[in-house]
């Protein structure tokens, strides 16, 4: 084949067809026009989002603005990062090719890997954060979800994936230790563990708030456990390996469980049996986490994961189609007064930094760095595919966050705040809740108690007042959007519980997998201490597994119970901690990336990871500072702590929203713990940031330093880079097919063999 101008075919072996294509062809005029058109459409949509006010703002504008921006960013900014920082070399074998063993190291089709990677990074985070952030109005959230993803979140995911791929798929903690020394490494390890615990606790709290006092929800979500057990047994003993078959059966059973939940909740015995107090639900979830951590993977964890993947993709597609068809009118203001004054009921604090803390997962999620390192690098075929997997995967997650935001801002504002203000403000009754939200000065006609009760009845719930945590709000919004064109009012209750079910499914999957991962981290650390503790390193030692599971569940369970019983509301005090933890992990990951980029001598392009790093540090440090030092009790943990302590010392028996001394003691205890965690987080991230700075200075002085990148191994295979193959890629692929047809004995045998 004669390659066209500006296209270079790279061979590693003269007998083999090319293994890489370096395509520097300029864009064709047609493509230029297409991208120009996409850019103009996106700009118009942005202008509509930014300048049109009132009832005329349409939910579909957000989708168009987001998608247009994603396409342009993927084509131009991600390409710049690829050229200047990643510099992929497809003549280099990836870990999947070099160490291929057909199991964890296996070259996987890029489109399949994209699905894999997306299923691993997407969860409840991008759904819950934007819903809470909607209290600040639609504009700040939209801007951050899109711009944050393009300039920060996608950059982090892409570059961490790149680092790990060049290091045989090593984990984030290991890479921090390798590149930044043992102090940075230790801070990183402790940070990851503490963050896991807080994330598990807060996610579990979201589920508790969605299921408490909801017999329908408890029944249908509870049914997922027997369904998963059935699937596990089916896969193990009846029809091994039939994963999609059993997943379809599982999804059908799930839908039945949702429908049956409605019947059960209508009976007196059902309502009696499944109406549970928040504390009871919390204990059940802790018990579930423990069981999932010690039971064999095949019985509970693996089948749940299949269900979760199926539901995840299905529901996200359903929601996207729903928003585009229903085109809901936006009810929220562009920027609310809470964004400026920082006194919002869903969470306290002003727009900077708390908007960025709250949205977390949809724009920049440190947790992704844990996923990006490890699994996906062992499956990718070519370095040039990392842009699709890493950058593209995160763009998709950002899109999910935009959907969640559109859903939340299309809910009537009075109902939104009825659901998201803590019970201490709403009073928990339709009448008092109506009085409270009418006093907020929201747009639109005032709400009545009857309307609030009517909204609860429409979705088959006893009450929707103070159902904080984001999940019920999203479910309510989804039920309105989907109900508007699928089944109308009669199916609204079904869609509400469908949404609750899939959110709970995501979160419980994270909780069981996370508990297990934290358990292994703990036993590894204990085992490495040596002495009699060395036994903990043996994963088959059941006693050790049980001890570590009890400790891990105890830790997050304690924080969960603290949140459930918190007289101040739980979500509004704990969610910021969750966001700070997640952003802190992102700071660690971005610091690692910046260090490596500087060490490699790409100083001129170090701003690509450094700009999001500096921004993220500014956000987390300001948020931590305010949470620790703010004199405002609703914002500063210690201010609240001291106010309650003084009141208690003065012999008062009620203070603020705490009605008795037990509640006052609870506030004193909770704020102490939250304040301490804030300090620990801040110290850990500062340690990592300072070590990173020090290594960077050393590297700049030395004019670059060696990194722990693995040496090159020549590739002996070919695969296209982007989602769709180009003409030259198709031709080269055809050459390989012809080559293997002629030389069947030469079939790729893995370079390690």
């Amino acid at each position, binding site marked *: 084949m004669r390659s066209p101008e500006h296209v270079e075919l790279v061979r590693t072996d003269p007998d083999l067809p090319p293994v890489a294509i370096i395509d520097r062809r300029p864009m064709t005029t047609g493509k230029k026009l297409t991208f120009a058109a996409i850019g103009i459409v996106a700009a118009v949509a942005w202008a509509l989002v930014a300048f049109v006010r009132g009832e005329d703002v349409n939910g579909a504008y957000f989708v168009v603005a987001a998608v247009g921006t994603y396409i342009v960013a993927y084509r131009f900014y991600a390409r710049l990062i690829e050229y200047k920082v990643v510099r992929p070399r497809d003549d280099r074998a990836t870990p999947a090719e070099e160490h291929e063993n057909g199991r964890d190291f*296996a070259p996987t089709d890029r489109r399949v890997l994209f699905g894999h990677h997306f299923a691993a990074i997407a969860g409840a985070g991008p759904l819950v954060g934007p819903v809470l952030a909607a209290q600040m109005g639609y504009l700040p959230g939209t801007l951050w979800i899109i711009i944050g993803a393009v300039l920060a979140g996608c950059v982090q995911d892409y570059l961490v994936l790149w680092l790990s791929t060049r290091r045989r798929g090593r984990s984030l903690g290991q890479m921090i230790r390798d590149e930044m020394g043992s102090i940075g490494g230790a801070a990183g390890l402790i940070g990851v563990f503490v963050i896991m615990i807080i994330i598990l606790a807060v996610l579990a709290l979201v589920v508790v708030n969605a299921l408490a006092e909801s017999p329908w929800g408890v029944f249908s979500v509870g049914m997922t456990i027997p369904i998963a057990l059935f699937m596990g047994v089916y896969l193990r003993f009846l029809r091994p390996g039939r994963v999609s078959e059993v997943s379809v059966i599982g999804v059908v059973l799930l839908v039945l469980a949702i429908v049956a939940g409605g019947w059960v909740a209508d009976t007196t015995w059902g309502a009696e049996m499944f109406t549970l107090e928040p504390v009871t639900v919390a204990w059940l979830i802790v018990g579930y986490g423990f069981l999932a951590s010690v039971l064999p*993977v095949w019985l509970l964890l693996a089948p749940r994961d299949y269900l979760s993947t199926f539901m995840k993709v299905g529901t996200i597609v359903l929601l996207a189609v729903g928003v585009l068809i229903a085109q809901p009118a936006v009810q929220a203001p562009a920027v609310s007064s809470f964004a400026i004054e920082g006194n919002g009921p869903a969470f306290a604090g002003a727009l900077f930094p708390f908007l960025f803390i709250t949205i977390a997962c949809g724009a920049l999620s440190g947790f992704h760095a844990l*996923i990006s390192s490890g699994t996906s690098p062992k499956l990718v075929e070519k370095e040039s595919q990392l842009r699709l997997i890493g950058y593209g995967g995160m763009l998709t997650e950002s899109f999910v966050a935009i959907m969640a935001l559109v859903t939340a801002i299309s809910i009537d504002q009075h109902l939104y705040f009825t659901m998201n203000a803590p019970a201490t403000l709403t009073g928990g009754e339709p009448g008092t809740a109506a009085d409270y939200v009418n006093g907020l000065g929201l747009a639109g006609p005032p709400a009545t108690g009857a309307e609030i009760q009517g909204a609860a009845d429409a979705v088959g719930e006893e009450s929707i007042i103070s159902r904080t945590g984001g999940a019920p709000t999203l479910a309510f919004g989804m039920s309105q959007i989907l109900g508007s064109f699928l089944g109308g009012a009669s199916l609204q209750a079904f869609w509400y519980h469908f949404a609750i079910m899939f959110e709970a499914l995501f979160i419980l999957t994270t909780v069981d997998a996370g508990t297990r991962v934290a358990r292994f981290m703990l036993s590894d650390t204990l085992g490495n201490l040596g002495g009699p503790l060395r036994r903990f390193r043996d*994963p088959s030692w059941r006693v050790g597994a049980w001890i570590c599971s009890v400790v891990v569940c105890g830790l997050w369970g304690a924080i969960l119970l603290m949140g459930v019983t918190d007289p101040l509301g739980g979500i509004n005090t704990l969610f910021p901690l969750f966001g700070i933890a997640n952003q802190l992990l992102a700071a660690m990951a971005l610091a690692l990336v910046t260090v490596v980029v500087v060490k490699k001598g790409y100083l001129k392009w170090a701003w690509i990871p450094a700009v999001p790093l500096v921004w993220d540090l500014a956000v987390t440090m300001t948020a931590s500072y305010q949470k620790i030092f703010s004199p405002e009790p609703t914002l500063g943990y210690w201010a609240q702590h001291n106010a309650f302590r003084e009141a208690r010392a003065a012999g008062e028996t009620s203070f603020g929203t705490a009605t008795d001394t037990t509640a006052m003691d609870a506030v004193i205890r909770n704020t102490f713990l939250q304040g301490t965690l804030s300090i620990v987080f801040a110290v850990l991230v500062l340690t990592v940031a300072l070590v990173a700075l020090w290594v960077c200075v050393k590297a700049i002085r030395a004019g670059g330093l060696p990194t722990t990148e693995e040496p090159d191994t020549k590739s002996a295979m070919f695969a296209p880079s982007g989602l769709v193959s180009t003409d030259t890629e198709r031709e080269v692929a055809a050459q390989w097919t012809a080559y293997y047809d002629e030389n069947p004995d030469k*079939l790729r045998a893995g370079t390690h063999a």
Partner: protein
Amino acid sequence: MSSLPGPVPVPVADGGGVLAVVRRGWRAVAWYVTGVLGESDYARYVAHLRRVHPDAEVPTVREYWRERHAAQDANPGARCC
């Protein structure tokens, strides 16, 4: 062939037409879903063994999934929030 992964092209035996398009679409969807869920990993593993270790014993589906779950038991992967 697993060296060039992708949906297996369907021979147009029924002379093309709507049926062939539907069948091709169905195959592509099945290829994608089984790939993402990991169902096709067994076939991939067997192909790998045949290619690289032709003398090694090929496990049955049941054995393969038992081993795989045991490996997952010993080394769990995180899921995101």
